[in-house]
């Protein structure tokens, strides 16, 4: 039973987008701050820090999660995936990312990382996800630019391409 004192940092070891990472954190450090400022993974954005806006949504051990509602020390040993890990390789985009681009499903791009992580998780968990499921999951995100409709269309396009075995571009 490790007890971490309030004013001490400890080494948190986990995998970030498949790579082993170790950085120090004190007990109160939020995972959102930890990823962005200690690990340099600034693609995950912070919009409200109380779990409503969804901008900081990432994947922890395969399930979607708000990074702002998680302590860094909680993810010891966990597998963390963020928007930086979505593309198959530098210079290419995943099917979902490409659909967002084609459907103009982003404008300022600030909320986008969280939305991509939620949809990417949904599509891997439920390849048959329909519009109702997509809308339900998107309900956990706020976007001020797009009015959401292009996001829904991009998601539907992506899931149908994924179902038909289309590969990344």
């Amino acid at each position, binding site marked *: 039973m490790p007890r971490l004192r309030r004013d001490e940092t400890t080494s948190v070891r986990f995998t970030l987008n498949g790579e082993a990472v170790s950085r120090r954190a004190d007990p109160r450090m939020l995972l959102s701050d930890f990823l962005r400022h200690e690990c340099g993974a600034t693609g995950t954005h912070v919009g409200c820090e109380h779990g409503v806006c969804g901008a900081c949504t990432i994947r922890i051990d395969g399930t*979607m999660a708000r990074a702002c509602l998680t302590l860094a020390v909680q993810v010891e040993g966990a597998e963390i995936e963020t928007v930086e890990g979505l593309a198959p390789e530098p210079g290419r985009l995943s099917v979902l990312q490409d659909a967002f681009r084609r459907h103009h499903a982003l404008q300022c791009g600030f909320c986008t990382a969280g939305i991509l992580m939620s949809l990417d998780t949904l599509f891997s968990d439920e390849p048959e996800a329909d519009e109702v499921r997509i809308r339900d999951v998107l309900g956990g995100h706020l976007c001020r630019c797009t009015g959401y409709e292009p996001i829904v269309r991009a998601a539907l396009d992506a899931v149908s391409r994924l179902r038909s075995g289309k590969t990344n571009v």
Partner: protein
Amino acid sequence: MKPALFDYVRADSLDEALDVLAAEQGDARVLAGGQSLLPMLSMRLARPRVVVDIGRIPGLDVIEAAKDVLVVPAGLRQATLLVHPGLERSHPLLAAALPWVGHAQTRARGTVCGSVAHADPSGELPLCLVALGGSVRLASKRGRRSVDAREFFTGLMSTDRREDEMIEALAFPGAKREAGYAFREFGRRHGDFAIVSVAAIVTAVAIEISVGGVNDVPARRVWPRLDGSALDDALNTLAWELDARDDIHADQRLRRDLVRSLGRSTIAEASRCLA
């Protein structure tokens, strides 16, 4: 919006967690899914001395189903319960209410017991637990005790849990064969706190109605199989008895209106299920 300082304990066993709770005299908070606790920490509304993480305790996420009772342990996530095989048959009320709990992203992390421990008056899970006559199993170094859900919620975000106790599990009684179940909720937006939520259980002889979001704790009434104007009168009496209040999302009048209308439609739906 960053938490104040606290010590962090990652408990490897329930005993370890209970040791900390006993030692801290009410100055420790249990961290399970964190979906209610973390906003409170970040806003510094809650400033515990110690946060006890129970997320790594083995076995705390395994559902026990025994004798029609679903025993939900402290580590079980809401999303996991939602896809529990046969839930719609065994616990139709939970199956209907769970999609209303937060968002998919918070359900993926948030625990069922955490939601009950948080005791938000608008919470769907406390309402279900009260409606179904479930119970809360509390553990402490002093031992274990079980509290009837209807005794457990004592006020706004306040429960009968003592400072050295944690919720070890919840027991949700299974569906009675000769009963219809329904859940309905009205909120301003998708995923919002309920302005009014209603759970109804209808049998051949009785209507059990439980209402959340209006009072500090879920309110429950048991009536004979009223209908027509007798049911309207009963709902109206309930609406007024609940002492609704104004806030920025709804006024007293709307809340009373919703108790009457949502109450009627939820009871009707439960009656249809029974038939």
